[in-house]
C-alpha cells in the first residue's frame, strides 16, 4: 500500500479498524477527538459497534463489557479522561480481559491545557487504579510507529489477556506524516475459551474481578505477576540510534525521543559521541538494554515532557553506577532540539557528579529558562 499523509489520531483509528476492531467506545476530548470522529464515520459503515459514551467512566465500563465478549475492542482519551477510567481499568485488570486504550496525553495536572505532554507516564506505567497490576504501555514517536503499535497492541492484549496502552502525546495525535496503513484484517471468527457470549450448549461462564477470599485474590495477583514476568521477558521494545560508539546516551520516548534525535544528530555533526535509546515499551521498561549500556557509557541524559517520571525508572536501573542527567519541559511545553543539544554539549564538557539528584540539578538549570521567580 502506498504512503498517505495521515494525521496521527486518524491513523491510529484506522489502524485499529484494520486490525479487526469490533467495538469502540469513547468520549470526545482534545487532543484525541479526531480519533473518535473517525470511528464514528467508519465503524457504523463497516457494521461494527461505535458508541459515543456519556462519559469516560461509562466508556471504560462499556469497553469492559465489550471485552468480556472476547471481541477486539478499544477506547481512547486524553489525560483527565484517562484519570476517570482508573476504577474501570483496575476492574479490567482484575478480570483479565484484553483491551486497548489510546491516551493522547496533554498538559496537566487538572484541566491544564491541551498541549502535548508526557505527564501521564506515572499514572499509566506505575499508578492509576488500585491494586497490583501492570499494563503494557507502548509509546510511538511517529505516525507510522503509532499505526504499527496500535496493531501490535491488540495482539499483545489478547496474548496476555491484559490492558495495553498506546501512550501518545498531543504531537503524535495532531501531526501529519506520510505513513502506510496495514491491510484490512478480517474480524475474528473464533472467540477465546473465557468469553462470555451466552451459555449456548456449554457450561455458563462468569467474568468477575471479585475474589472474596483473600487467598484466591492472592493467587490471582500471583498469576498476574507471572504473566507480567513473561511480558517483561518477551516484549521489551526500543530503538537505538548511534549507540555503537556512543559514550553518552540520551534516553527519551515518543515526541521527546524524536526531538532528542534531532539534537543527537546535531551533536554528532559537532563530533560528540552521543547516541539515543528510545524506549518503545515504557512498560515493560527496557531495563536490560540500559543495564548493558552502563558497562560502556560515561553517562545518560534522560529527556521527557514531564518532571522526570521515566527518570526514576532509569535511576532504578543505573543504581548510581554512571552519572545521569535530566532535561524535561513540563505542563505542555515541548523542548526544542537546541535545548537538548545544549545539554549534550554541556555533558561532553563538564564532569557530571555520580551522586546528587539529577532532578534538583535540572530544576536549577531550568529556573532561568522559565523565568522562575520565587
Amino acid at each position: 500500500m502506498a504512503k498517505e499523509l495521515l494525521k496521527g489520531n486518524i491513523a491510529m483509528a484506522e489502524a485499529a479498524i484494520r486490525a479487526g476492531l469490533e467495538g469502540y467506545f469513547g468520549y470526545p476530548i482534545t487532543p484525541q477527538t479526531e480519533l473518535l470522529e473517525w470511528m464514528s464515520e467508519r465503524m457504523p459503515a463497516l457494521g461494527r459497534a461505535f458508541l459515543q459514551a456519556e462519559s469516560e467512566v461509562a466508556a471504560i465500563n462499556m469497553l469492559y463489557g465489550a471485552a468480556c465478549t472476547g471481541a477486539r475492542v478499544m477506547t481512547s482519551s486524553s489525560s483527565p479522561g484517562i484519570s476517570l477510567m482508573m476504577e474501570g481499568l483496575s476492574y479490567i485488570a482484575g478480570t483479565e480481559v484484553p483491551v486497548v486504550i489510546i491516551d493522547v496525553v496533554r498538559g496537566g495536572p487538572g484541566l491544564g491545557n491541551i498541549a502535548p505532554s508526557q505527564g501521564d507516564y506515572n499514572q499509566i506505567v506505575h499508578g492509576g487504579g488500585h491494586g497490583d497490576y501492570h499494563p503494557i504501555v507502548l509509546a510511538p514517536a511517529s505516525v507510522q510507529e503509532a499505526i504499527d503499535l496500535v496493531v501490535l497492541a491488540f495482539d499483545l492484549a489478547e496474548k496476555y489477556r491484559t490492558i495495553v496502552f498506546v501512550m501518545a502525546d498531543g504531537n503524535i495525535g495532531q501531526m501529519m506524516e506520510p505513513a502506510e496503513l496495514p491491510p484490512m484484517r478480517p474480524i475474528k471468527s473464533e472467540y477465546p475459551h473465557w468469553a462470555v457470549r451466552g451459555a449456548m450448549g456449554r457450561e455458563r461462564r462468569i467474568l468477575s474481578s471479585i475474589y472474596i477470599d483473600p487467598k484466591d485474590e492472592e493467587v490471582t495477583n500471583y498469576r498476574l505477576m507471572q504473566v507480567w514476568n513473561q511480558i517483561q521477558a518477551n516484549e521489551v521494545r526500543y530503538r537505538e540510534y548511534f549507540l555503537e560508539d556512543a559514550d553518552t546516551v540520551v534516553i527519551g520516548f515518543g515526541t521527546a525521543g524524536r526531538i532528542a534525535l534531532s539534537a543527537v544528530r546535531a551533536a554528532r555533526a559537532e563530533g560528540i559521541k552521543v547516541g539515543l535509546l528510545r524506549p518503545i515499551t515504557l512498560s515493560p521498561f527496557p531495563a536490560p538494554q540500559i543495564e548493558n549500556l552502563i558497562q560502556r557509557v560515561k553517562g545518560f541524559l534522560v529527556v521527557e515532557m514531564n518532571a522526570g517520571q521515566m527518570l526514576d525508572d532509569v535511576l532504578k536501573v543505573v543504581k548510581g553506577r554512571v552519572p545521569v542527567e535530566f532535561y524535561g519541559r513540563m505542563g505542555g511545553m515541548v523542548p526544542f532540539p537546541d535545548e537538548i543539544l545544549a545539554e549534550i554539549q554541556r555533558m561532553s564538557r563538564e564532569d557530571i557528579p555520580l551522586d546528587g539528584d539529577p532532578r534538583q540539578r535540572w530544576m536549577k538549570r531550568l529556573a532561568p529558562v522559565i523565568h522562575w521567580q520565587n
Partner: protein
Amino acid sequence: MDTTLSAQIVYQRPQSLTEATMHYCPGCTHGIAHRLIAEVMDEMGIRERSIGVAPVGCSVFAYNYFDCDFVEAAHGRAPAMATGIKRLLPDRIVFTYQGDGDLASIGMGEIVHAAGRGENISVFFINNAIYGMTSGQMAPTTLPGQKTTSSPRGRDVETMGYPLRMAELLANLDGAGYVVRRSLHDPKNIRMAKKAIRLAFETQLRGLGFSMVELLSTCSTNWGLSPLESLKWLEEHMIPYYPIGDFKVADALKEIKL
C-alpha cells in the same frame, strides 16, 4: 374411562437457578426477585442466550445463582457494561440486576443514559430504600424520616434531599420502552412482578428499547425488623411513596397477553 389420582408438580425450583444456596439474609426478597427472573428465563427458553450483569450491592454474587453467562460490574456501571455487551452481541438477551445505591446513586449517569439511548437491555432494579451490603446507609430511595446508619436522626429532606422515584424519572425518556414498578411483599404483587419481568424481556426481544422493572424489596437486616415485619413495612411505608404502576409501556407491548 376411569379417573385416578396422580401427583403433579405445581412448583419446582427453576432450571435457570444454579444449585448454590444464596447468601442473602433469611427472608430477603432479593431471593424472590432472583427466583422470578429465573422462572421467566425458563418459560421463555432464553437461559442459553442470556447474559447477566451483576452489580455491587448485596446481589454482588448474583452470578453464582443464575445458570447463565454473567459478568460482574463496577458499582453503578452495570448499564454501561451491559451496553458494551449488547452492542457487540445484539441478539443476546442482556440484563442488569441492580440495587438502589448502585442504580440510583453512583450509577445515575449510566442508567439515565442507557434509558435515553433506548439501549435494548433489561434492568431489574431492587429498591429496598437502603444500602444493604454496606450495612444500612441511606440510599437515594430512603424515605423521608427513615433512620439509617448515615441518617441516624432520620432522612432530613432539607439537607439530604428527596427520595428519587426512578421509574417515574426514566419513564420520561424517549428511549424507554417499558418502565414499571412492582413489589415483592405478597403473592399477588409477586405474580404481577413476574409478569413485568416477562414483559421487560419481551421488550428487549422485540427491540423496543430500554426496559426496567423496579421491584420494591425488603432489607430486614438493616431495617431492624423481622422478615415478616419487613413485608408489612414495605407495604405500609414504601408503596405510598413508590406507587405500583406502569409508567411507560410501548404500544407494541400492549397487545401481549400473558
